[in-house]
């Protein structure tokens, strides 16, 4: 039965990043006892949720053959907007939860709009996604710096106190950001693997012309992936802002590279046509784990952290591609 065979081969392909993840876990436990403490594990999960959520959006963009370098500065920009909105509505709206909900709603809108701009410039103006998003990356980064007057935008203390629950609160002992991450991952998985839209992303990433001749609205679907990416960035921002209650020109720097790395470590093909949400989740965890383990030991000179990170990322992808290659040579 072909169905069975397909599933089995996907399992094999997924093995790579999982192996890397488990290896890192063992390493972590070995390096420091505190690694396996519930506090540390919950920190890791909560931390990886930002990059993870952004990377889930990136999985769509990359699967459909695009790339988005603007996510980091988009996150900073949206954070700034949310803070400005909340601070300025403070006097006008009594109920803080309502105020926060308005900001969240605005955040989603801005994210979707920003994604839409990237998408339209890519599909309608036919400019390479790399250049479009490199450009908007500079633009959003500038805007947040301008909005913050070069400094930091801080959330009003009273709102911040209420809102911080969203990052620090827990449900069944698990931090809210982790729940959000899980929900986004599940929705992302269903969307990518179980719906027409997801199938179309695969098709476009693997051959745009075939997709066009298969009656797929190529431009529309591609734009949608950027919009989804924008919304994911906005969701990441919604749980990021309550953490420190501030935004500055430094916020989200290099998130784009981390997100793309998570996606590729997870087994998605950078050239498009093959994407994997759970792989991306694992990829985000791997990246966070590396940082965490490096912080738990002083065996390695601080200056060499980046080198260790680089080596592990390359090794993880090597593992993952090794498994992939044996099954399906291309």
């Amino acid at each position, binding site marked *: 039965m072909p169905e069975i065979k397909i599933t089995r081969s996907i399992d094999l392909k997924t093995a790579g990043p999982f192996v890397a993840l488990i290896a890192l876990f063992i390493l972590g436990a070995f390096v420091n006892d505190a690694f396996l403490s519930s506090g540390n594990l919950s920190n890791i999960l909560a931390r990886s949720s930002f990059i993870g959520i952004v990377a889930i959006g990136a999985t769509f963009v990359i699967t459909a053959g695009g790339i988005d370098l603007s996510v980091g500065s988009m996150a900073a920009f949206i954070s700034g907007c949310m803070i400005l909105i909340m601070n300025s509505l403070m006097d006008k709206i009594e109920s803080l939860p309502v105020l926060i909900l308005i900001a969240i709603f605005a955040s989603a809108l801005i994210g979707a709009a920003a994604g839409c701009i990237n998408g339209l410039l890519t599909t309608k103006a036919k400019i390479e996604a790399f250049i479009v998003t490199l450009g908007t990356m500079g633009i959003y980064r500038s805007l947040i710096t301008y909005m913050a*007057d070069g*400094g930091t935008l801080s959330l009003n203390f009273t709102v911040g106190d209420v809102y911080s629950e969203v990052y620090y609160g827990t449900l069944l002992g698990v931090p809210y950001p982790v729940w959000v991450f899980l929900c986004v991952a599940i929705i992302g998985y269903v969307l990518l693997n179980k719906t027409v839209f997801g199938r179309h992303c695969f098709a476009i990433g693997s051959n745009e012309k075939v997709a066009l001749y298969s009656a797929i609205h190529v431009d529309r679907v591609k734009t949608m992936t950027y919009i989804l990416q924008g919304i994911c960035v906005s969701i990441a921002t919604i749980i990021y802002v309550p953490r*420190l209650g*501030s935004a500055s*020109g*430094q916020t989200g*720097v290099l998130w784009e590279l981390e997100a793309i790395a998570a996606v590729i470590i997870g087994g998605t093909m950078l050239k498009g046509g093959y994407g994997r949400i759970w792989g991306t989740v694992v990829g985000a965890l791997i990246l966070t784990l590396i940082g965490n383990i490096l*912080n738990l030991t002083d065996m390695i000179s*601080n200056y060499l952290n980046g080198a260790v990170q680089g080596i592990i990322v390359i090794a993880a992808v090597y593992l993952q591609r090794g498994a992939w290659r044996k099954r399906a040579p291309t």
Partner: protein
Amino acid sequence: SAQTIGVSIPAATHGWAGGLNFHAEETKKRLEAANPGMKIVLLTANSASEQANDLEDLVAIHQIDALVVLPFESAPLTGPVRNVKRRGIFVTVVDRGLSEEGIEDVYVAGNNAELGQVSAKYIKERLSSGGNIVILRGIPTVIDEQRFDAFIEEIEGSNVIVLDDKHANWNRDDGFTVMQDFLARFPKIDAVWAQDDDIAIGVIQAVRQARRQDELFIVGGGGMKDIVKRVMDGDKLTPVDVLYPPSMIATAMELTALKFLSNAPINGDYILGSPLITQDNAEDYYFPESPF
């Protein structure tokens, strides 16, 4: 006669640099308003080589009469600043001294070593009977090194044990993450040296999350208004701060302007101290309208 002063500083890529940009901008407005003949060109750079470009442009295009420069990094900008000086332009160097002596006419600077030293002294005194501390460092650069080395030198021989140090890149998020991991790793921490107030903000949140705010205190650096406010309010978590004022750029610009406005000889070093900000004197260092 009209005078043009070029000001070249790093772009606002972290809190302290943001404050720097703010003060530079304010001073430019103020000086230009007060002296109609004076033109101030303010350029910001994202890297050492971009700043070298900016210096060339100030000379070639704006034909400046004086330069106020806060080098992105000392060594790489020594040559370019020297080239400016060779054209007979009056040079004021701020904060980061060049690696060659005698180039600048005026040197206005904070004292990074002193920042480390003052921080260490305070921690040493508070923990005179011994204690564990962790250090969150900045971006690996000369400034970070000067602060760190001075701190370690001062703390050595005391009862204070430095558990570990990690780079938090003068960044809130990294401060938060690194501190979370320190807290997970070390069950007993008595004090944190955060070196910079942006890092301190992240550390505060991590400590609060771990509900360990009663067992330790944090020493930041810079004089960010949020932290100064906490000191002023008597927050136990941040009992003190160590000043490293971004407003030094204003001092430098004013001194340079004075060179053209008065006949007084302007030259020499103006080293600003790094005093300890405590609850008693915090009010003097609190500027609510500044972005830093």
